[in-house]
């Protein structure tokens, strides 16, 4: 049992950013351990991009490049990865806690009869033992977890935006290996269709989130937030009442029973700030609250608070941002 193995996520011809974050974290832990860092790269057309993983500190990359790997399907991905891991025998397997990443990690952990810490925000090596910190109760608390003795591989998925991504070093190169793994011949499940959602910034992975609450008063008024988001390169989120009203899609819901986000900047507009909503955004680096009610609970956690009518404030704020040439 030696080293750390990172499972990367490759989609639409590129590794997703979270892959580099996980590799960076893997590199840090491998250095602490004094053992190698390797990665697994599955996909269709992944060979051309695989070397970039080396720039983030991976020493050896196991590449499986097949049309059958174009879209994530657990029935195909899990056996292929399990087969590669039989040869690699790492101490720890790290993966992204993206939608598919969490799915894959769970099935793989059961396949390998091991323990998995999902959605980790911190990992550390303490006296030779790995420990993982992960949010529970939607982020209202954190749990430190450890694996039982002699349990290998120790598996952890890493929350997007939580691990520091190192700067790529193009002078570093990894060895590329193409293991002779074949995809399962017969499968009972399949991906029927993939419909891209356009260029929208993903809510969970966004650096900036502009979020609207009941104070927005209607679906149409969200056009104002979309304009602001466009300017900032931000994703647009929503509180639960807004989604329940049907003003915004459920995928935009931020909160304990929605998405938990941890961007650099979260702008809460017309949101009162229930505990469930706070659970979903409370770990954002900077929180800005705009609400005409000075007693709104959101102000108790906001870095910067603005008590104002959002319909007056936001257009002025947009103008100011344009003046500062933000875009």
């Amino acid at each position: 049992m030696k080293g750390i193995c990172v499972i990367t996520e490759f989609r639409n011809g590129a590794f997703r950013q979270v892959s580099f974050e996980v590799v960076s974290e893997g590199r840090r832990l491998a250095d602490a351990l004094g053992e190698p860092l390797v990665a697994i790269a599955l996909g269709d057309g992944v060979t051309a991009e695989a070397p970039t993983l080396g720039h983030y500190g991976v020493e050896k990359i196991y590449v499986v490049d097949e049309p059958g790997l174009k879209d994530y399907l657990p029935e195909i991905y899990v056996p292929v990865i399990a087969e590669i891991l039989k040869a690699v025998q790492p101490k720890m397997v790290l993966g992204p806690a993206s939608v598919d990443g969490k799915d894959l990690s769970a099935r793989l952990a059961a396949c390998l009869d091991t323990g998995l810490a999902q959605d980790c925000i911190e990992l550390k090596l303490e006296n030779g033992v790995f420990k993982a910190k992960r949010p529970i109760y939607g982020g209202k608390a954190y749990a430190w977890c450890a694996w039982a003795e002699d349990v290998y591989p120790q598996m952890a998925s890493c929350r997007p935006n939580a691990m520091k991504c190192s700067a790529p070093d193009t002078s570093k190169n990894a060895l590329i290996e193409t293991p002779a793994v074949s995809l399962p011949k017969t499968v009972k499940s399949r991906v029927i269709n993939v419909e891209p959602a356009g260029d929208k910034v993903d809510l969970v992975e966004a650096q900036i989130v502009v979020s609207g609450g009941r104070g927005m008063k209607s679906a149409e008024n969200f056009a104002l937030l979309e304009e602001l988001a466009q300017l900032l390169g931000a994703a647009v989120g929503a509180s639960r009442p807004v989604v329940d009203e049907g003003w915004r899609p459920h995928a935009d819901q931020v909160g304990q029973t929605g998405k938990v986000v941890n961007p650099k900047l979260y702008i809460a507009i017309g949101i009162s700030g229930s505990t469930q909503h706070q659970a979903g955004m409370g770990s954002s680096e900077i929180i800005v609250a705009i609400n005409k009610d000075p007693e709104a609970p959101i102000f108790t956690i906001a870095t910067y608070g603005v008590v104002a009518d959002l319909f007056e404030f936001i257009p002025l704020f947009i103008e100011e941002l344009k003046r500062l040439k933000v875009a």
Partner: protein
Amino acid sequence: MNVVVLLKQVPDTGTAIKIADDGKSIVENNITWIINPYDEYAVEAALRLKKDIRDMNITILSLGSEQTERSIRTALAMGADSGVLVNDPAAEGSDALGKAKVLAAALKEISFDLIFCGHRAVDDDDNQVGIMVAELLGIPHLGMAVAVEIESGQVMIDRQIEGAKVRSGSCLPALITFGGAHAIWKPRLPSLLGMKQAGKKTLDIKTLADLGLLPEQVGSAAAKIMVISLEMPEPRQAGLVIEGDTPAKAEELARLLREAGAI
């Protein structure tokens, strides 16, 4: 068609979380226990399919304690047909894999075409048990469904990944985990008649021994991963409330964010 819905009882999401004296669990006084919202969506999804598939039988399967019966009865009141509760103190302290092993053992005794469950429970947010059950049973799974259909012996779901909506399908038997939100599924409230009927529906209680399992296989001694301590998040301080008239506030906020390197 037999659908089994895996159901977990969790603290209401409005619960204020306090760390207990042992440092690795939460204080459980004054908690209102509810059906895990994502499992509730799974129950609702099954009930909606039952409208079109007359001979569908819906069984609720839970791993829990005596108080879990209440949540199972609620699901029965919504319209599910029967329940099975695995209640054994020896199963306490199990990790996700341990729980999955218990559920898989219980499922081996139930005839099923489909297993539905939430993709995660809103207490531990582990996001594992359902998928692990599928792996242990050797059946396909499709995760994070926001829509589900059954047609010609196939189950189809829509799921959302970053930047795309995916349609996936599987032969039966299969396990489906549910995502989405309350706005999508709008789980029905049990009717008075439903509540009356729920009391008469079968709710079997099982122990690990009934399922042919030993505590060492699934309890805390078997756990591959455990919680060693809980921590509360750093309390956020209330920050700066910006003063001035509205245009001045807009200018100041932009300036502060620019200075903080946020924009």
